[in-house]
């Protein structure tokens, strides 16, 4: 059976490179499932978990920003940061979440609010991914 080579790349180096049967991720315009043989595609990703499935295993990666580039045999995810569940520090994520929540509720100015919301999303995403793994 055909497989997809998936590589997740961040500015700090590659995170994962492996063969999978299916990739499902959340793009800005909705959920996207990719199987081998997909037409070339580029789509921006939201802060979310990317699920990578192969016959007998499944991985999930917390992705922050970035986009996915699809070719028939290869999927590349370029993100500002990407973490495997084993790399996520759940306590730190919890603290970041609380901090971000406080900032969101404090009624800060537009830019600060936007940043706090992004930070909150990232923290929630990390916790989510850790729990699902």
């Amino acid at each position, binding site marked *: 059976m055909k497989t997809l080579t998936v590589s997740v790349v961040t500015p700090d*180096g590659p995170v994962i490179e492996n063969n999978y049967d299916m990739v499902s991720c959340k793009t800005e315009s909705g959920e996207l499932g990719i199987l081998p043989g997909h037409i070339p595609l*580029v789509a*921006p990703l939201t802060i979310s978990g990317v699920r990578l499935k192969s016959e007998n295993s499944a991985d999930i990666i917390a992705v922050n920003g*970035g*986009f996915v580039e699809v070719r028939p045999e290869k999927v590349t995810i*370029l993100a500002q940061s990407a973490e495997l569940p084993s790399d996520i520090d759940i306590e730190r994520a919890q603290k970041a979440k609380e901090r971000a929540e406080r900032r969101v509720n404090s009624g800060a100015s537009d830019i600060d609010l936007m940043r706090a919301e992004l930070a909150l999303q990232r923290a929630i995403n990390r916790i989510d991914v850790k729990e699902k793994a």
Partner: protein
Amino acid sequence: MASLRDIKSRITSTKKTMQITKAMEMVSASKMNKAEQNAKNFVPYMNKIQEVVASIANGTDASHPMLEEREVKRTAYLVITSDRGLAGAYNSNILRNVYQTIQDRHNSKDEYTTIPVGRIGRDFFKKRDMPVEHEITGVADQPNFADIADIAKQTVQLYTDEKIDELHIYYNHYVSAITQEVTATQLLPLTNISSEGQSLTSYEYEPNEEEILEVLLPQYAESLIYGALLDGKASEHAARMTAMKAATDNADELVGDLTLKYNRARQASITQEITEIVSGAAALE
């Protein structure tokens, strides 16, 4: 002629200095290796993003403010220097270059602004009363992307908000452990996205080109800044290593000279003592 004791204390102090410079040399060497590794890790990301940007920018007629030149009213210079000195000509080369360029190109302070990275650069511009838009100090020796994401974002934001119309970046490009080159590139607007040597793929865009560019271009610009910073860091450690090696060599030479002087002085004093004793004995006969 200096006394024996004076020479001896100079030898000791030079040797102590040598120990320090030698230690610094080794520290810089290991930091340089790590920085080189970081720069290498970054390459796949940069290549990929460049490839995608190039195929979108060249393959479609989608437009984006970051791709278009506009009338230049204000230019920003992002200058990457180090926080600490003792790195040979690392900082002075780059600052001289920037200063010269600014003097040549601009008549008044309203036409440009600077964004120095590193304390040396900041102090340089502040002392000369030049405008400083943002300043970034205390960047780690092995920066990771999260550390500079904010800075890069703010800088790109300046362009988006039309506070600046051009962004140039100055840094030392790491050629090898002994050569670093001052490099100046225009970062924004992105007019020279090369697609040489790459096979351009025609992609489907989801939802459409414009929105992809909206996400992609700022990310691209940020990663260019990050790349320059990594390159600059590698150069900094290399420059410091070379400088410290030169200092150690010089100290070694100095210790050699001083030891020779010391031995001469010692011999002279022994000769003198013998002469004194002999002449004393001769006087008694």
